[in-house]
């Protein structure tokens, strides 16, 4: 397998960093497109695993995802390349704003630009989640976990770390009894 170049990791995450509007989850559709679908450097499963683990790690979601993916693909240098790429666009933009005291939030043009972008970001995150769901939800049993997560967070207001832990424990008890583990994929 060919080695993934640090320069490519940096450039991909630089591009993603310039278009991650509205919080860490907005990265998901971009990563899914660039690294999972187009380049196949990550499998859909790898990506879901990383999202799960990041819930239990302190820090910023966008930074943690970049570090984790970079580390998985190319070790410490990979992690640094990705995090540099994802951070440079916001650092550059905020420095400009701080230097010139730009007043973006009162500019009518910028406000309507972001009305459109925000609506779009929700939709593309949904689409990435749907595509990942098609691969991860392989039976009624796995649908139970998805529905349980939504109900646990929205109705019972539980923290996602607790629910992910529960899903893992239930997974261990229900998936290791028999041989079904290997057949579940089909």
């Amino acid at each position, binding site marked *: 397998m060919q080695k993934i170049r640090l320069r490519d990791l940096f450039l991909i995450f630089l591009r993603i960093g310039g278009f991650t509007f*509205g919080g*860490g989850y907005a990265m998901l559709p971009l990563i899914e497109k660039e690294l999972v679908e187009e380049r196949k450097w990550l499998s859909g499963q790898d990506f879901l695993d990383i999202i799960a683990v990041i819930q239990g790690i*302190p*820090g910023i979601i966008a930074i943690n995802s970049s570090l984790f993916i970079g580390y998985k693909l190319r070790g410490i240098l990979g992690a640094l390349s990705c995090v540099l790429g994802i951070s440079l666009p*916001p650092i550059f933009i905020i420095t400009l704003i701080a230097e010139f005291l730009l007043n973006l939030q009162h500019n009518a043009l910028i406000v309507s*630009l972001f009305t459109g*972008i925000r*609506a779009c970001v929700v939709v593309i995150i949904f689409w990435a989640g749907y595509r990942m769901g098609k691969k991860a939800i392989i039976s009624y049993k796995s649908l139970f976990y998805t529905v349980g997560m939504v109900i646990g*967070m929205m109705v019972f207001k539980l923290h996602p770390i607790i629910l992910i832990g529960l899903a893992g424990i239930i997974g261990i008890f229900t998936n290791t009894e028999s041989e079904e583990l290997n057949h579940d994929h089909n």
Partner: protein
Amino acid sequence: MIIIELFITFFKIGFFTFGGGYAMLPLIQEEMLAHEWLTIEQFLDIVAVSQMTPGAIAINNATFVGYKIAGIWGILATTFGVISPSLIIIAIVATLMHKFSDHPYVEAAWQGIRPAVVGLIMVAVISLGREAINGINGVIIGAIALFLIAKVKLHPILVIIISGALGVVVGLV
């Protein structure tokens, strides 16, 4: 020295906040006001600007404060400070994950966790959607974006650019 103080403060912010984004705001606010690095108005401005620029609020805040207090070196101290705890923890966790990935219990646990994470993403969609898609303009742009990504299969970055342009057109009409 101010550079070291900036680094340590932002290291603390990076280390003690789980969940990112808005969960980090109270701690950042407390630290910035306590050090008198920002006024409350400046802090709220940064939060507002963060919603209109790419990138995480914590990085934007770190950049703004670092630049204001100590220029380029300040930015290096604050951003590297906020990132460092994650780098250390992720190096450990990723190594452990790799080591135990073949264990049958671990694979069994992932089979429960993966579909649960899909649910987590959908919860993010619902809570973001409540704020972002309000009014008929948001619904129309959202529907066009869905068509472009799902049917036309455009790259998500292109869909973001087109939606921003649509927002401007609709906003000016």
